[in-house]
């Protein structure tokens, strides 16, 4: 496992003001405590990795960031101002685009319709204002091809796509609409090797444009490949945040496992799973 990558890191000034700052977020579901006080921020142009064991609360956390859940307790600052997103649409309009772990796609609808869901481009005006279907189809096919997926047709129903194709639609959509912050919840989990490297390259690209990226992954290697900072969650709490270079892959992997010992595989996987 090597750390010298072709991506350039650390360009983002460490002292830039964060775009989003989450302070001491708690989230309870009935009697279940999913988050027990987590603080986190994202600065422009950085890729902040959120890591942690299964069930640590990563998805719950980014869902409060993108307006899906209201935090039970805690404060969200967006560009310095207290924010209270009442719906994901609000968050989106503020410039936060998210790839959810469950992808948030409608299986019965076509790829194009899913791609532009909620933000359809229109042409014409007055009563003749309508979706620009031709452009929508074209954008969809192009963006998907850039991610390494050749769709047969833009009107195939998402429910009939393969797992990786579907995930790619969600990523391409978020990238297309991500204005200030791009949140990716395990975006590469179902992707093939080619698509994965495209996604990692894309993360690097959008970061260079000054967009803040929140990247959740279970793959230490993917995280280290693109991450500038690493925050590890465990059982609803933060275990700490590390800068790139401050921490070794093995240390990071240990933290991600929640400090518990792992099965006897170390050797076979060259240190990191």
């Amino acid at each position, binding site marked *: 496992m090597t750390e010298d990558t072709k991506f350039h890191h650390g360009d983002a000034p460490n002292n830039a003001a964060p775009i989003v700052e989450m302070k001491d977020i708690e989230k309870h579901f009935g009697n279940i405590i999913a988050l027990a006080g987590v603080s986190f921020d994202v600065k422009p142009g950085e890729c902040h990795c959120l890591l942690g064991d299964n069930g640590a609360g990563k998805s719950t956390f980014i869902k409060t960031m993108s307006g899906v859940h209201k935090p039970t307790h805690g404060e969200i600052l967006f560009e310095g101002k207290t924010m209270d997103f009442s719906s994901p649409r609000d968050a989106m309009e503020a410039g936060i685009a998210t790839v959810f772990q*469950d992808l948030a796609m409608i299986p*019965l609808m076509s790829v194009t319709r899913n791609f532009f869901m909620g933000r359809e481009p229109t042409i014409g005006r007055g009563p003749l204002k309508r979706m620009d279907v031709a452009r929508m189809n074209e954008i969809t096919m192009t963006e998907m091809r850039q991610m390494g997926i050749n769709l*047969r047709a833009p009107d195939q129903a998402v429910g009939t796509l393969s797992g990786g194709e579907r995930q790619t639609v969600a990523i391409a959509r978020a990238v297309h609409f991500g204005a200030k912050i791009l949140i990716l919840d395990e975006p590469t989990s179902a992707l093939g090797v080619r698509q994965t490297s495209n996604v990692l390259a894309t993360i690097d690209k959008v970061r260079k444009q000054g967009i803040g990226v929140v990247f959740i992954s279970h793959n230490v290697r993917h995280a280290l490949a693109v991450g500038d900072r690493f925050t590890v969650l465990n059982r609803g709490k933060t275990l700490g945040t590390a800068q790139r270079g401050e921490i070794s892959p093995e240390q990071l992997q240990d933290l991600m496992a929640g400090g518990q010992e792992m099965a006897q595989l170390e050797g076979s996987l060259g240190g990191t799973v």
Partner: protein
Amino acid sequence: MSDSSPAVDERLKSEGLGARIMKRPELGAIAGVILVTVFFLATADAAMFTTSGIINFMTPAAQLGILAIGAALLMIGGEFDLSIGSMVAFAGLFFAAATVTFGLPLVIAIPATFVFAACVGSINGFIVIRSGLPSFIVTLAFLFILRGLSLVGLKLATGGSTQLRGVRDATEGDWLAPFFSGDAFGGLFAWLAEKGIVETFKNGNPKVPGLPIEIIWFVIIALLATWVLLRTPAGNWIFAAGGDSNAATNSGVPVRRVKISLFMVTACCAALVAIITVMDAGSTDSRRGFQKEFEAIIAAVIGGCLLTGGYGSAIGAFFGSIIFGMVVIGLTYTDFDQDWFQVFLGGMLLIAVLFNNAIRKRVTGER
């Protein structure tokens, strides 16, 4: 990363025109229409497919269809409205009272009726959204409430009777009336009759005085709804809201607004039917629209809407209503013993839907 899309993907078989057409849910129901037509051509009296016969079954089909299209939009959006039948009675009462009791001109009474219906619809929607209860149970409550209020209101308005009359007198001569009652293209039909293209009575009058206005509304609304569903962002939101309202919300679709608007649209469809039927009949009573919510849902489902939401089409509901209207009225043209009416009705519906389904599967190669 830069492989260009191959002109023809080798993973696609070529596909006939039939398959491409049948894949669209909006056209699947056509097979059912054809089957039913063939059946009645074979069994029914020839009078059924004369111009007057067609208009005769298209009129109830159109009235049902206007409701069915509203219901279909709502079903695609993932909700039900069981109160539309009662809404027809209630909006009818409101409209009749406005014109007869308060003597308002149509230009005020009609918009007022629509606004009123939309308000009731939005209450429905609001309760559904806020409480998170299934719309089935909420609108069911309004089925009873509106039906009951129609009765109470009628008795108030008439001083004891359940029928409020005099609408025709009250609206006669109003310049808006021709848009909501009577027949259109009267001149055309008279001319056609003269030329012998449409049938005439023995005394030379055309058998059909014109095209009933509800048929025109029906077609317009079907086209409009199809346009909205297939070509506008709102349509995309409707499909999304019904397909998976969670995923839609998370993708930035304003699901609440979409659903409340749909409840309002549905209620307005009911109000339109109410206005048309009240003006045509010249009166209203507390039983108007009885069980229409049910028939509207039937028509939408025949036309391919899924009860679970997220799938369907307005054109499907259009053809579904025609199938339903044709079967209900058509059986009267046949020689079957009318005791068997319901048996045939059920059987025809089942066969039409099965046929339509089988054809679609066969053509698209689906299994």
